[in-house]
């Protein structure tokens, strides 16, 4: 037996996410539709299976390890703001951001002044450093354009994604 009723609606009904009017209407439909009643029953059985899953428990030293890590970061970065920055700017990230900043500054100077205002060696060093870091660490991703670079300045960035690395800036920047 089939029913062409929207099945997403059945799931929302089981989850208690339907508005009162829609819920009442579906309940009325269920009184006469065996196919939809079966769908509701199947969704509920699946929910019961999830309820039977055992939660994962942390190992015994989970909390001490967490506080030890926090303490290490505070020692590395000092109190207050320094501690927060320590969480964001690990050595690797500092290296990467330093390289990015160097290249960005070089680019800015290059765009606003004479092309020769930035020593090519300085730009190359920053780029090579970032590239080497990216290649050495698979966790590091590549910033390929100015928009990506702006994301690095998002204050919430560290809670959202990974810090990226500039590579081949010249390829992505306007000529």
């Amino acid at each position: 037996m089939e029913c062409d009723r929207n099945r997403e609606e059945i799931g929302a009904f089981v989850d208690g996410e339907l508005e009162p009017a829609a819920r009442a209407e579906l309940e009325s439909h269920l009184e006469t539709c065996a196919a939809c009643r079966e769908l509701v029953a199947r969704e509920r059985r699946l929910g019961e299976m999830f309820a039977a899953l055992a939660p994962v428990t942390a190992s015994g030293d989970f909390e001490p390890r967490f506080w030890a890590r926090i303490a290490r970061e505070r020692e590395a970065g000092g109190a207050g703001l320094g501690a927060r920055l320590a969480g964001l700017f690990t050595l690797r990230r500092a290296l990467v951001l330093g390289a990015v900043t160097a290249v960005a500054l070089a680019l800015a100077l290059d765009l606003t002044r004479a092309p020769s205002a930035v020593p090519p060696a300085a730009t190359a060093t920053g780029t090579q450093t970032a590239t080497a870091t990216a290649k050495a660490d698979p966790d590091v991703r590549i910033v390929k354009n100015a928009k990506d670079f702006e994301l690095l300045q998002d204050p919430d960035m560290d809670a959202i994604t990974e810090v990226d690395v500039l590579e081949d800036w010249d390829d992505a920047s306007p000529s």
Partner: protein
Amino acid sequence: MRDDDARLMLAFQAGDRRAFETLFARYTPRVLTFLTRMVRDRARAEELTQDVFVRIYNAADRYEARARFSTYVFGIAHNLALNELARAHRKHEQSQGDLADLGAIDPAPGVEEQLDASRMRVRLERALATLPERQRAAVLLRSEQGLDYEEIAGSLGTTVSSVKSLLHRAREALLAALAKDEA
């Protein structure tokens, strides 16, 4: 929107370390369970769970109670899980599996009841592993963690309408996988 947990986070922001400890105790099992099912590696999930709380701790002074705290926590956990899975894909180039060949949903009722609880859990975990990542995250947040659609949408960075669709596809796929496993 401010729930009790968000108020605790704001208290921690104001300097109350015990408030953070309460949140830590309250959310560690939930986040660890979610991440374990997402990345399917218990040890790695524990490291990621530590990462979640380190980020919350370090970013406390920037926290804003714009949504429920659970949305904030699971949003971070979800992003870390996706990063981890992407890393695993790059390293091993493992497929998450194709649901296209899992067959139609078995219309016969009652097959689950024929199995004992432990076997059923194994089957469900195996079926979960076949889901695409976002579907897996959505159904875990709803069916295991009890988040409502709005909270799930906030955690996954999507809309309530999209959550409804993700959940529908996830459950259809789970039921299909369970039926195939039974066959």
